């Protein structure tokens, strides 16, 4: 019902249960319909890219933990690949495999979190989130026993990984990957055929394949829109070309597809981890590099398939011990950019679900 009044502006955030951090949406509403969305970011800006220009290449690794704090391993990996490419450092075979194992574990943990909070946004009162936390917790325990940290791992190094996993790591990770497919089946049973969830998420926040490509959307969101694109296959890094895995691809590009693609990717990650653990070569886990690495002047860009999409690191060297320029291509930021297109015209609950399905991490958006 329109009345000739001033627009009804709803200020979602920066403190709001479903903005996943400090992020603000300025929503112009007409009743329950959304007429316009204005996204306000920057509340978590810590100027990491500028700070990185003052620190050595090794000192920058902990920064990358703190951009996407739910996927520290993937960030470490992306940055180390870029720095290695810049400095021409060779990585031992074992380190490559370990990187794959930890990156995939991180993907499972991150997708658990993403899917859990997504269902939370759809209104299930934290239960799926808690279930998924159960598995995430075990993965974080694995991280802890390997590198001492759970969230901000700081595990990858330029030239390898920081530590070889301890002996008790292997039985634990084997038990976990034996258990995980059952757990994922459990979520599927609990959630995937739930009529309410279907009603809430299907055909909501639809993003067509063409729009997704035009908007540089990457990761599960792109795949949910139907584009079979995955950097692990398209441009294999580490040792991904040696593993057999599939790319789950959605049909419609709605929130439900995004959820399902993430769920399937968890299964595929389990497959990768199993293969990597079976063929894990012996040898050193790290190439020794000088403490103050001074690469030749030049530039390098390395990208990995992070849990949220294409995670790119662009590093420029002027020959000094610190990068001259450091830039992160943050998938959260770019995936978020089409929220307006997806949510305008929908109702407020749909917009919240759509925002949840983009699986953003504000630390990465603002850096």
């Amino acid at each position, binding site marked *: 019902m329109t009345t000739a009044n001033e627009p009804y502006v709803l200020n979602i955030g920066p403190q709001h249960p479903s903005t996943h951090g400090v992020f603000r949406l300025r929503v112009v509403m007409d009743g*329950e319909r959304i007429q316009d969305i204005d996204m306000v970011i920057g509340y978590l800006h810590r100027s990491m890219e500028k700070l990185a220009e003052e620190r050595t290449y090794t000192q920058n690794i902990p920064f990358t933990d703190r951009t996407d704090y739910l996927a520290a391993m993937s960030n470490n990996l992306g940055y180390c690949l870029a720095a290695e490419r810049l400095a021409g450092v060779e990585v031992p075979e074992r380190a490559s495999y370990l990187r794959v194992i930890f990156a995939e574990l991180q993907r499972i943990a991150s997708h658990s979190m993403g899917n859990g909070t997504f269902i939370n946004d759809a209104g299930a009162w934290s239960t799926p989130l808690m*279930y998924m936390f159960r598995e995430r917790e*075990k993965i974080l325990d694995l991280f*802890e026993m390997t590198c001492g940290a759970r969230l901000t791992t700081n595990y990858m190094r330029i030239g390898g990984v920081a530590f070889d996993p301890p002996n008790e790591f292997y039985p634990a990770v084997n038990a976990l990957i034996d258990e995980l497919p059952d757990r994922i089946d459990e979520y599927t049973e609990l959630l995937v055929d739930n009529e*309410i969830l279907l*009603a809430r998420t299907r055909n909501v926040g639809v993003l067509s394949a063409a729009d997704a490509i035009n908007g540089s959307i990457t990761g599960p969101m792109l795949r949910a829109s*139907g584009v079979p694109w*995955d950097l692990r296959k398209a441009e294999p890094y580490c040792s991904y070309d040696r593993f057999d895995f599939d790319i789950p691809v959605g049909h419609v590009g709605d929130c439900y597809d995004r959820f399902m693609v993430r769920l*399937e990717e968890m299964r595929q990650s389990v497959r990768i981890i199993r293969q990597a653990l079976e063929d894990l070569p012996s040898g050193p886990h790290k190439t020794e590099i000088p403490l103050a690495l001074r690469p030749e002047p030049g530039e390098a860009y390395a990208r990995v398939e992070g849990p949220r999409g294409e995670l790119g690191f662009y590093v420029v060297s002027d020959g000094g011990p610190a990068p001259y320029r450091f830039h992160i291509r943050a998938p959260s930021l770019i995936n978020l950019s089409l929220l307006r297109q997806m949510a305008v015209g929908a109702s407020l609950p749909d917009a919240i679900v759509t925002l949840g399905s983009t699986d953003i991490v504000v630390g990465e958006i603002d850096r």
Partner: protein
Amino acid sequence: MSAALDPIRVRVRVTSPRLAVTLGIVLVLFGAASIGIAYVVVSGMLDGHWYDFRDLGLGMAHLREWLNEVNAGQPAALSAFLGDQWISYITGALLGATGILTFFGLLLLILVWVERRLIGRIQVRKGPNRVGPFGLLQPVADALKLIQKEVLIPIGADRFMFYLPPVLVFIPGLLVWAVVPWAPNMNYLDTNVGVIYLIAISSTATLAIFMAGWASNNHYALLGAMRTVAMMISYEIPLSLALLMVVLMTGSMQLSTIVQWQVDHHVWLGMLMPLALFTFFFSSTAELNRTPNDIAEAESEIVAGFHTEYSGMKFGLFYAVELGNAVAVGAFVAAFFLGGWSLFGLETWIPPYLIFAAKAFGGYFVLVWLRGTLPRFRLDQLMSFAWKYLIPISLLQVLLVAIEVTAMRYMHFPDFVELSLVGAANLAFTIFIVRAWATFLGYRPEREQVLKPTMAKQMGGLRAAEEMRTR
């Protein structure tokens, strides 16, 4: 990584011998007490005495008799003004009101703990377990915290209208408990318009909630209030229709009569009219703002809905009323559809009010269970469910029940045969109409295959995407 780190596998192990001995003594005492009580009940020592704990109404009756004697002895001048029975009236009213208030207060205290523990269990975590034994004192701690908190009043809020709603919401929450039929003689207000009383009283909460949302001068609160009002008004209709079926079947609006009807016919109305049970329960979740219909305070969308701006004990009152109403819904489901205080003859041995309480808490448990399991509907989905599905289907079912009741008046089969026929007819009708209506309105789950993601082996871009879609 060890079992100790795993939050799921941690179990409390009774290792202390002292604790084991204490537990053993408690168990033995409990067993002895149960045997003693059972003996006293079976031997018939209690029958008809005021201390028969199976029927608290009996004690009240004795008390009333005694008070009437007291009444008779009063000076004539006083009784000319105040009537013959004023002492027993006033005492009865006060005792009943005190009983309800005490029950409500204690109930809320326990419920806070029960709900959080249950939700904790459902969510594979422990729930509050720090304050007191098993965390039992958690509600007290919560209340203390809430009382200490500052009560904020938003700038631009209408102060008078902002202060009123928590109280106004509390009144209907308390009043509905008056008509609850606890046991054969335990009804505080056994009015013969009990059903309509229930509907009328619960409808007044709508205005209070709307006031809360409007007076807060907050956009979330206003949205929540609008949603609440839209939903409450819509779902009052199916709720009333479900109760209308009960009234038609039992021929009474008096709650004690409705329960007595179920006792006399040895049947639960929920078995006879599953659709009414479902409609009542589902509409109640909407009226209560509980999952899956908690859109009015959907925390992921509009923070807390109409009580976003309420802090301290004002919020506490809203929260308490919500919990209390949830149990009240359980109680009314028990009374209308689950046979009230009866349990197929067992009520002679077990105190009926305990049976009733067990059923009420059973209904409440289902509500908590739903809350821990289901996602939330969207407003338009809920409204269309009410108007397009529940109301027409309920109307048809009301018609069918009316026909059945009329038919039962002219048939003279045994009760059992009649009611079996009615139950079978209603069940068949429910299944048929739900399917037919859904098909009619275009909902065909079997045709709409839910597509799981396809597995791609090859990389590709837009062209690959289009190829996959056409395939």
